[in-house]
């Protein structure tokens, strides 16, 4: 294992110290493990709180700021945060209008956020939770824990963040978050595994010409192993799977996301292939992101997320945002 760290067990705390030193706009509570806006809670605004295992940076801490999250709760690498820190963050950002938990659909995240929500409710905070489950690689059946939450999390946090900034109440924030999630689908492809620092060994092994199709963001193997084929074909595999699950049409927001170890030049090559596929299917790219937005440590590979836009969603997407990882309009 080769990593720019001090010690495997210190990664999270050291990284949080780095976040604190790098971003004066954020306030990092290293003791309780949460990141909030330096300004403190916004009175009368519905607060957006998200969190999950670390190793997905910039998610979630990099999305704390005006127009997006109010707080992020980073767990250990690839491990759900614990109820205590979620509770502390929830109370820290409650502005009196209630708190919305944006939870990626993993049993661990769901259970820990659920326990935190119960505790917060006991303490008189109004809390709602929305599950993000956009990954079409996992079929959503009673035979699984349900779809994983992946790329759509970025869209939900941005769009609902804009709405709450404008005064959306808790109920409509919940409804909007569900709408964005329902309109979004993702598919991920891994070229290499990644190594959890505390573990020290790669999560799986791959041959020189092998890839994992349908991976999530926790270094786990995918639904199936495949051969490394040209980017054009990989884009087709991902978009066919998305299209089969929820037919694409009209204007879309597309994210070609690097999993952490893939150079940007390759993401642009993949984006070109995605653009070809979409135009070939009469779908228009109205908005897009290309880069590392929700990662899996140093894993090489990419995920493609598509959201079928409405004029309202596009307008909220364009609204000003000011976070370390996503910024425009101010």
């Amino acid at each position, binding site marked *: 294992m080769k990593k720019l760290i001090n010690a495997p067990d210190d990664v999270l705390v050291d990284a949080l110290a780095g976040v604190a030193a790098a971003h004066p706009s954020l306030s990092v509570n290293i003791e309780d493990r949460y990141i909030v806006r330096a300004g403190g809670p916004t009175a009368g605004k519905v607060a957006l709180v998200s969190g999950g*295992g670390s190793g997905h940076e910039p998610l979630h801490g990099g999305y704390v700021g005006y127009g997006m999250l109010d707080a992020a709760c980073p*767990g*250990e*690498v*690839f*491990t*759900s*945060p*614990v*109820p*205590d820190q979620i509770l502390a963050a929830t109370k820290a950002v409650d502005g009196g209008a209630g708190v919305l938990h944006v939870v990626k659909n*993993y*049993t*661990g995240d769901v*259970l*820990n956020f*659920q*326990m935190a929500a119960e505790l917060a409710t006991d303490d008189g905070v109004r809390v709602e939770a929305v599950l993000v489950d956009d990954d079409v*690689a*996992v079929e959503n059946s*009673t*035979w*699984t*824990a349900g779809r*994983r939450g992946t790329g759509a999390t970025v869209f939900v946090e941005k769009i609902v963040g804009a709405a709450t900034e404008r005064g959306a109440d808790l109920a409509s924030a919940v409804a909007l978050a569900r709408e964005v999630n329902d309109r979004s689908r993702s598919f991920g492809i891994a070229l290499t595994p990644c190594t*959890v620092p*505390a*573990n020290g*060994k790669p*999560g*799986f092994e791959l041959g020189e010409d092998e890839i994992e199709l349908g991976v*999530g963001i*926790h*270094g*786990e*193997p995918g*639904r199936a192993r495949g051969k490394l084929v040209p980017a054009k074909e990989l884009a087709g595999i991902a978009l066919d799977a998305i299209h089969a699950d929820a037919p694409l049409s009209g204007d879309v927001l597309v994210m070609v996301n690097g999993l952490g170890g893939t150079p940007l030049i390759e993401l642009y090559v993949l984006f070109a292939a995605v653009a070809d596929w979409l135009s070939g299917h009469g779908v228009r790219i109205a908005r897009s992101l290309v880069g590392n937005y929700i990662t899996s440590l140093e894993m090489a590979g990419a995920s493609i997320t598509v959201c079928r836009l409405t004029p309202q969603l596009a307008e909220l997407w364009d609204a000003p945002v000011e976070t370390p990882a996503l910024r425009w309009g101010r």
Partner: protein
Amino acid sequence: MDASTFRAWIVEAAQLVIDNADHLTHLDAAIGDADHGINLRRGFQAAVTMLAETDPATPAAVLATVGRALISKTGGASGPLYGTGFRQAGKTLGEDADVSAVQLGAALRAALDGIRQLGAANEGDKTMVDALGPAVRAYQAVVDAGGDLADATRAAADAAARGLQETIGMQAHKGRASYLGARTIGHEDPGAASTVLILRALASATAGLPTEGRAP
């Protein structure tokens, strides 16, 4: 079975989890995200520390403390699940300073129910429930047949081990492993494996014997 024996159980369980952390993580790497051993080690170390700090007087207080510690420190799916299990178990024991074999049986049953209620897993879903379920039944059978605490906990640990073997043939329907679908067949479930360790620790604590699986 008094508070000190319950503490001995948890200390022994923590030691077993530490000794087998890499193995549990290795099992989780195959069908999950390679952190189960890391999570439980963190959780049980916190539980032992909290027991030492707060020194709870009753069996119920010991289990409540352990449950809180696991929930606060473990993270992942297993933290809330095991934590809830211990808390529910503790709630059945009231203020008693000494717990009978029958009472422990009810406590184990409450742990199983708590975990099943929170995680909504049935036996056959390839989870810790596939080890704990059979264990609870085996324990009850021994007690019903008039067996003592040591016999019953030993039977529970053995049944859990058999349940763990059963998980190899199962396809996961709950937790991260379910994402891998049929690829999960042929692997032990990490949580079932850790349940075996915890029940082995219980058996040796009640029998006052050394546990198998301890690192030399």
